[in-house]
């Protein structure tokens, strides 16, 4: 995240508001700590409680929620444990989908960001606006639109059949591919924007120096430009990976029962009749842990670069 970080660049910053600093920061600290930090801790606690059958919890310590990810112990939890891969598969699928979405966004988003950043400044803003507008459009509406476009007798299939590329409509909806397309399309702007910002600041005289030494363009891109804009690339990857991993709308609307992801699994525990709050809390805790690990790795890599 650029802007507002610790440090604050070379410009001399005033400290005019230092005496009232605490009063300025307190409202935001209080609101986020009470309504976000505390709830996260309570969620962690709930994941270790016993489930109440009609939603909610019984205040009794239990590891049943975590146990349920790996073992099936029957309806009342007293059968001998049998290995159950249903939930492990859902987590694995979510991880793979999120990684593939990140890779695809990078593969397509990097050239786009590079192209936009190397335009003359007055063209840049227009290109950038075009990439940003979809980000401002309601994600639900975007996902519904995608479903409309790719459905069995929808415009995409009609178009492909019209130009003779396929003879039968592609059954895209309810497949992993549709979910992947939804994730890619939802989060592509998150990849383009930070890479754009990095390439825009990149000093092209480095590339030119390499070119004078007879390196070819692709070697320059790989060996000189890419390492220099790496922070932007990593920021983009994190911004795509995190929401993809916990995505709910794309798998729910574009996918089906066989494309279930963590987001839908969690939602089901709090909405459906077969809800299990501790299990849902445990799934959310695991998801949050994966995200925190990704963020910590990123922060550590950044710290090492700066030393």
């Amino acid at each position: 995240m650029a802007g507002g970080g610790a440090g604050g660049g070379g410009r001399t910053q005033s400290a005019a508001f230092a005496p009232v600093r605490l009063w300025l920061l307190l409202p935001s600290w209080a609101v986020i700590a009470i309504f976000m930090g505390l709830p996260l801790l309570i969620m962690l606690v709930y994941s270790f409680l016993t489930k109440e059958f009609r939603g909610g919890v019984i205040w009794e310590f239990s590891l049943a929620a975590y146990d349920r990810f790996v073992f099936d112990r029957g309806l009342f939890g007293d059968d001998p444990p049998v290995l159950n891969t249903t939930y492990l598969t859902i987590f694995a699928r979510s991880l793979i989908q999120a990684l593939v979405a990140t890779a695809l966004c990078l593969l397509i988003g990097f050239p786009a960001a590079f192209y936009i950043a190397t335009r003359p400044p007055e063209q840049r803003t227009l290109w950038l606006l075009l990439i940003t507008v979809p980000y401002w459009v309601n994600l639900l509406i975007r996902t519904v639109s995608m479903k409309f476009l790719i459905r069995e007798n929808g415009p995409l299939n009609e178009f492909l059949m019209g130009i003779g590329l396929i003879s039968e409509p592609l059954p895209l909806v309810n497949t992993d591919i549709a979910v992947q397309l939804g994730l890619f399309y939802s989060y592509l702007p998150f990849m383009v924007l930070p890479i754009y910002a990095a390439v825009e600041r990149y000093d092209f005289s480095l590339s030119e120096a390499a070119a004078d030494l007879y390196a070819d363009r692709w070697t320059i891109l790989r060996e000189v430009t890419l390492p220099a804009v790496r922070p932007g690339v990593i920021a983009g990857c994190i911004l795509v990976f995190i929401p993809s991993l916990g995505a709910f709308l794309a798998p729910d609307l574009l996918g089906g029962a066989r494309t279930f992801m963590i987001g839908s699994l969690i939602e089901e525990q709090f909405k459906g009749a077969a809800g299990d709050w501790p299990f849902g809390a445990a799934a959310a805790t695991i998801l949050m842990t994966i995200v925190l690990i990704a963020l910590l790795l990123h922060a550590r890599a950044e710290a090492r670069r700066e030393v």
Partner: protein
Amino acid sequence: MARRNDVRRYPGFLGITLFCLVVLYAPLVVVAVYSFNASPSITLWGGFSFRWYEEVFFGLEAEKFKRAAWNSVTIALMAGGAATVIATAAALGMVRAGRFRGKGASFALLSLPIMAPEIVTAVATLIFFSLIGLTLGYGSILLAHIVFCIPFAYLPIAARLEGIEGAFDEAAQDLYATRWEAFRFILLPLLAPGIVSGFLLAFIISLDDFIITNFVKGAGVETLPTAIFGAVKQGIKPDIMALSTLMLGISIVLVTISYFVGKAGSTRR
């Protein structure tokens, strides 16, 4: 320099950029076009008509959509407004109050709502509200929205504040302006474009939210996204496409406003 080794040009990059735009816009354009379809079938084109827009405003479900729209807009205005005030104070405390211990931790706390996946925030908030016995409804939605809007309002405001020379407010204080006067008459006018962008971003983020709202809304209270989601579950009908196109239009208008506000702000400096 030789064209063949121009380090700013790579073959195929323009094509990929255009491909991005096609992927991003094709679904929206298709839905917008079909919302003007006279035929009730969502597959066949039956000529141009506004009938589905009439349906949205005067049809059987118009009351439901109007109530949902009212909830969405009032919540977005209040959540966006509250988040902007809190974020402006936080930005002053972070950018204009010198170095202090825990600045990094403070920034991490401020960005927590952006960093946590939405579904995790939704679960945590629902559990918290049910534990403290808060009735789910309009109030709980508003409260949840204020929290996740803060970082979205904060980022543009802090970025703008970092670009304003510290000399301005220091000069004001040297001339015996109180801290409040220095803020009100010197910083606030300079900061205004950042505050407007921050508010618009928070407003849109609140208007957009589905996942968290869906968890904390309780029975009977709907916002536009939850109402649309409920309708879409029974299949995509043409009136939903008209409603979506209207929301698309509103988003584009807001982005354009934000863009010009930002531009006006940057030329003034």
